[in-house]
Each structure stands twice: as C-alpha cells, then as structure tokens.
C-alpha cells in the first residue's frame, strides 16, 4: 500500500509495525507516552500498546540506558528515545561502557538488542544543545553500530530493521527533515540496513552524505548540473560499519570525492572516509578527498547556524576545488 508520509510519520509507522511484530519490543523515553514525544514520533503508541510497552521514564538519560541494558539482558528489545542530540551525554557512560561491551564481555551470552534513537543536527533555530551531530563519538566505539536515515522510506524500514537486529544501534534521525514527505510503499521490499546507496548518478565528482545532508548534496548536484558539472551522490545510510563497496566503486570512476556532514570536520566521519578511500583508491584519485563539515567550534547560536552548517554553496565550492586539482 502506497501513501504519502512525512519522515516523522514513517518512523511512527515503523515503530508501530515493530511493536506489532515482536511483543518484546518496548519504547522508553521522556515524554514519549501521552505527549507522543516532543517531535510526536511515538504519537498514539502508548494508547495502543499500553504503559508497560511505551514507557514514560523519569528524566534521567543514564537511567534510561542503564535500565534498557537490564531489559535487554532479560530478552527485551528496548527502543530508547533521547529527546535531543545534546542530551545523550549523561547516558554516554552506559552506552560506551555497558551497551557496547556487554556482548563481547559475556562472550555472546548477554543480548544487547537496544536501539537508541537520537534526533540530530541543526537547522531548526533551536537553543543550544538541540542541534548537535554526535555520531562520531559512537562510530568510534567498538560494539555499537550507527546508522542515519535521510528520507521517509528509509526511516520506515531502517527503524524496523534496526529493532530486529541483534547488535545495539544508535539510530540518528535528521530532525530538520522530519517534515519532508515521500511516497511510501509498505509492501515494497526494503534495502539492507547496512548498505550505502547511490542516489544520483554522476561522472565527475562523488559526494558522500548521510542524514540531513543528503538533501543538501542532491540540491548541490542539481545546481552543479546547471553549470555542466556531473556530480554523483551517495547516501551512506550506515555510519558504522561503513559500507565502503559502493563508495569505492564510485570514487574509482569519478576520481574525486567530497564528504559532507554537519558534524565538525576534525576527526569526523569525513576523516575516516578520506583515509579509507585514500588507502583503497590512491592511484584512482585525481584530487585529495575533501571535507565539508561544521566548524570546530561549539554549535553557534541559531542566528549563526546558516553560516555554520554546510549548505548547497559550500558543497559546490568544494566540488569546484576538487575539480581544480
């Protein structure tokens, strides 16, 4: 069945389907019950699945993750909502020291099927701590997997696939794209969760993006086309592990690569992608891999975020620099 839905609604539908499919799936978080979450992603779910499965928790992120660990040990599949990216840090210890390690420490005996949903990124004019992109912290941690959806169709499928997956997954949702719409066919077969995808063919420069920056990259590719430059765009979708196959295949063809993310460039995903591409495609490269990211400053006050965030023009500027080599 095909309907037009927003990314936020697609997540809501995906969560509902996951809860219908598996009674062990529980949702936990602040304000996710009656309110349906501050972004309404869990709207109506507590009403239909009850307070035991859609749990309004005390306002304590470490407590949410720590109790999720215990529930996972008991065989449940907790799906945890962190209200905003900048609020995940109180839970960081539980995520890095416990969630990420317990499967290995127990030699596989303790299941850690936990999904940590985090609305991330800026562009919504919010106050501080509400616009951050902390994905690199988690991608750096062995034992965690990290994915980011960029559109309603992926949102619907990826959240279900993440919940069904045995490993703990940090699931980044592009909050400024929650209201983007697309046609969703819930009967169509989904793509694999840990696969990157070519979203626009091109021949001269490969642009890599994920989450909110996929749309920006596609807009930049359209603008470049008007200038006669052919830009290929890949939606990484999985941040850890990286799916390098499609990336390397593309870069070998174009010889040029620009990585775009909102997170600061220093030791961001772009750094790792640049290293991996250089190691694998050294002789195919016509230019160094370039990064377009947030600056290495604290996320600025919202009046400045348009200057901080990568946009169409900054992507195009990097494409031009790459072509100039």
């Amino acid at each position, binding site marked *: 069945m095909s309907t037009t839905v927003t990314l936020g609604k697609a997540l809501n539908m995906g969560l509902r389907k996951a809860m219908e499919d598996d009674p062990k799936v529980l949702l936990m978080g602040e304000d996710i019950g009656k309110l349906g979450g501050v972004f309404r992603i869990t709207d109506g779910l507590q009403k239909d699945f009850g307070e035991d499965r859609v749990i309004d928790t005390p306002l304590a992120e470490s407590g949410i993750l720590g109790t999720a660990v*215990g529930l996972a040990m008991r065989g449940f599949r907790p799906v945890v909502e962190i209200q905003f990216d900048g609020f995940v840090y109180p839970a960081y210890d539980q995520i890095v020291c416990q969630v990420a390690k317990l*499967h290995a420490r127990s030699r596989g005996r303790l299941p850690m099927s936990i999904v940590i949903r985090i609305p991330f990124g800026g562009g919504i004019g919010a106050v501080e701590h509400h616009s951050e992109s902390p994905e690199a912290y988690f991608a750096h941690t062995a034992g965690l997997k990290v994915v980011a959806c960029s559109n309603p169709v992926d949102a619907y499928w990826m959240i279900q696939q993440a919940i069904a997956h045995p490993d703990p997954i940090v699931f980044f949702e592009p909050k400024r794209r929650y209201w983007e719409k697309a046609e969703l066919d819930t009967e169509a077969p989904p793509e694999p969760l840990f696969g990157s995808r070519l979203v626009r063919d091109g021949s001269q420069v490969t642009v890599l993006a994920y989450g909110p920056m996929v749309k920006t990259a596609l807009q930049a590719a359209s603008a470049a086309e008007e200038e006669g430059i052919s830009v290929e765009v890949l939606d990484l979708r999985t941040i850890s592990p990286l799916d390098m196959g499609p990336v390397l295949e593309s870069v070998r063809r174009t010889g040029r690569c620009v990585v775009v993310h909102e997170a600061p460039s220093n030791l961001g995903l772009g750094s790792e992608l640049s290293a991996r591409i250089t190691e694998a495609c050294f002789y195919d490269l016509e230019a160094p891999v370039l990064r377009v990211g947030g600056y290495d400053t604290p996320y600025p006050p919202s009046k400045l975020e348009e200057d901080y965030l990568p946009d169409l023009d900054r992507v195009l500027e990097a494409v031009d620099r790459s072509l100039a080599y």
Partner: protein
Amino acid sequence: MSEVPELTDQGFEPNPFGPHHDPIGSDPINADEQNPTEQPVLVQLLTPEGERVEHPDYSIDLSAEELQALYRDLALVRRVDVEATALQRQGELGIWASLLGQEAAQIGAGRALLPDDMAFPTYREHGVAWCRGIDPMSIIGLFRGCDSGAWDPIESKFNLYTIVIGAQTLHAVGYAMGMQRDGGQGACLAFFGDGATSQGDVNEAFIFSAVFDAPVVFFCQNNQYAISEPIEKQTRIPLYRRASGFGFPGIRVDGNDVLAVLAVTRRALEAARSGQGPTLIEAYTYRMGAHTTSDDPSRYRLASEMEAWKLKDPIERLKAYLVRSGQADAAFFEAIEKESDELAARVRRETVEMPDPDPASMFDNTYAEITPYLQEQRDTFLTYQAGFSEERSHA
C-alpha cells in the same frame, strides 16, 4: 562528640559521625543511637562475641546443618580470597579485590537468593558468586587478565562483574522491570558499596525502581572506605536513611552477622517478589584488607581501627556461637580447614596452569556476527602473527 548539633525542627540532620569521625571511639555501628526515634537501628542476631540475640522484627531459625553450611561458605570464600591475594603477590594475578571482612554480608545476601532471582555484583562479590555456584576459577581468570569473567550470567543468574561504580544498579532495575513484564517470579539483588551511593547511576536506580515499583533489593556493603575516602566523604546521614527520600524502606544490618544479613535480605527479597517494591539494605561492615592489591591502606587509616574490627570478625563470631551452642565440634572445624586448604591448593594449581587466551579471540563477539571490516582486521592480524618465527609467536 559535643560538636554534633541536635536535630532541628527544620528536619536538618547533622552528620551522625561527627565532624571528626573516629570509627573506633564513636562505635560507628551504634553511632545512630543519638537518634532515639530510629531505634533499633542495627539489625543484629549474633553479637560479635557469638551470642545469639533476638530482634523484634527479624527472626531466623536454622538447623545445626544449615548453620554449619553457612560457616563452611564463610570459611571457604575467605580461604580462596587469601590464596588469591597471595597469587597476586607472586605475580600470578594482575590484581585482586579482596572481600576480607565482608564474608558474612556476601554469604548472608547470597544465600537469601532463590533460583529465579538475579544478582548484579560489583567486582568484589566473590562470596555471592560462590553462593550462585560459580567456580572460583571463573573469577580468577578475570583478575589474571584472561577474560572478563568466565561464568554464564544468564544460566548462573549472577551478572558479570561491573567495574564502573554503580552502573549495575540500573541494570538490576531494568532486569527487574523485565521480570514485571514477562511474569517472572524472582527479584533482583543489586550490590554496591558506600562510595557508589554518590554516583548518579545509583540515585537514578533508586528513582526508577521506586517509580516503577520494580522487584529489586539494593544491597549496599558499607565497608567504610571508597579506596581511601572514609564514609563521611560520601554522606552526612547513615546510608540506609537515603531510602526514605526515594520513597522506600531502608534498613541497616550488622554486615558481619551472617544470620542477620540472611534474615534481612530474605525479607526484602520476599517483599520485592510480592510486588512491594524496592528496599535498601545497608550492610554495615569493614573492609579488612586493601581496596585491591594495588592499594596501601596504611596511608589513610590506623592499624588500631583494624584491630577493633577484628573483634567483630564475621567468621569468628559464628564459630563461637557454633561451639558455645554445641552445634559443631572440633572435628567439623578440622574438616572445614582441610577442605579449605584443598580448595586453595586447587585454585593455586589451576591458576598457574591457566592458559593464555587465543589472541584472535579478541575479535570474537564484538558483534553478533563479525563485520566485514573487522574480519579484514582479524585476517590481517593473523597473517601478521603468522609472520613471526615459532618462538616469537603467541601460539
């Protein structure tokens, strides 16, 4: 202690230990007697001299065989602990966290557990592990650096040791919330120390358990020290009283009295299993050894303090009671000593013989299924290792 202020109308509670807490002079077990409304504050069924006493709220009736079994538990876990400390001194273990002095707290709590219950230890609960049927060698491997604890946490109903202070209390609450949701009959027993009560996670665990009425018992072994910091660096009130602020009962038990700990923990677990929510038990005890073998308590506490606590030794008092009441004879104690020595000898032998782990095993179980990138690293590692000559290889 004249500096200690009186309770005020505002409900302000002064530090009951006083500004210059002297655990010997002030007799900290009974320090709380300043507050008559809280009498009796310390549940005790066996005095330090080994006299059986009654308590109005807690009773226990054990046969001679059951009492002997408790004595055996206490003696064997202490003997293994002493052996492990020696093995560390001889370079066979990287480190050891001794339970010396806390045997009664751990055996009393451990023997209160029923098969459906789940225990969440710190890294010092060797006595509770023993009660859950975990072989000491499964613990030794962790401290030798061979693994992260070789027991099965699901099968043994004894979670892996948790080294991050207090983190496991939240796991216990979550697990207990799971029991509420899947019709489980058990309760969780969460262990932690006096230092951990300052951690956010422990306070969050108190809140979650109270709000969700989770079947969990918080078992705090107040051994007076968080490494070097004495209890007054963590609290102004007796720890068990923290519970009231979170909305559940707290109780202080003589942690060196195995009978009292057993009675109190049984009661609290029963309450949890029957839907009455959490209890905080403060087992008042003393860490007779160092924090770990890397620690040097002579830098921060007096030997005389230790001497005072030796008079409250958890094993000696049960022995005195067994002898005085004629429930065990010399032959029994000789047999236990022989069994202890044999167990220690096995621990020593198996420790020395314990093989190093397979180097490639570090890649195992990072994920449910190894990722392609990690597989690449593993392959590279094996090729690299194979490049060394026979004598340099780890194989």
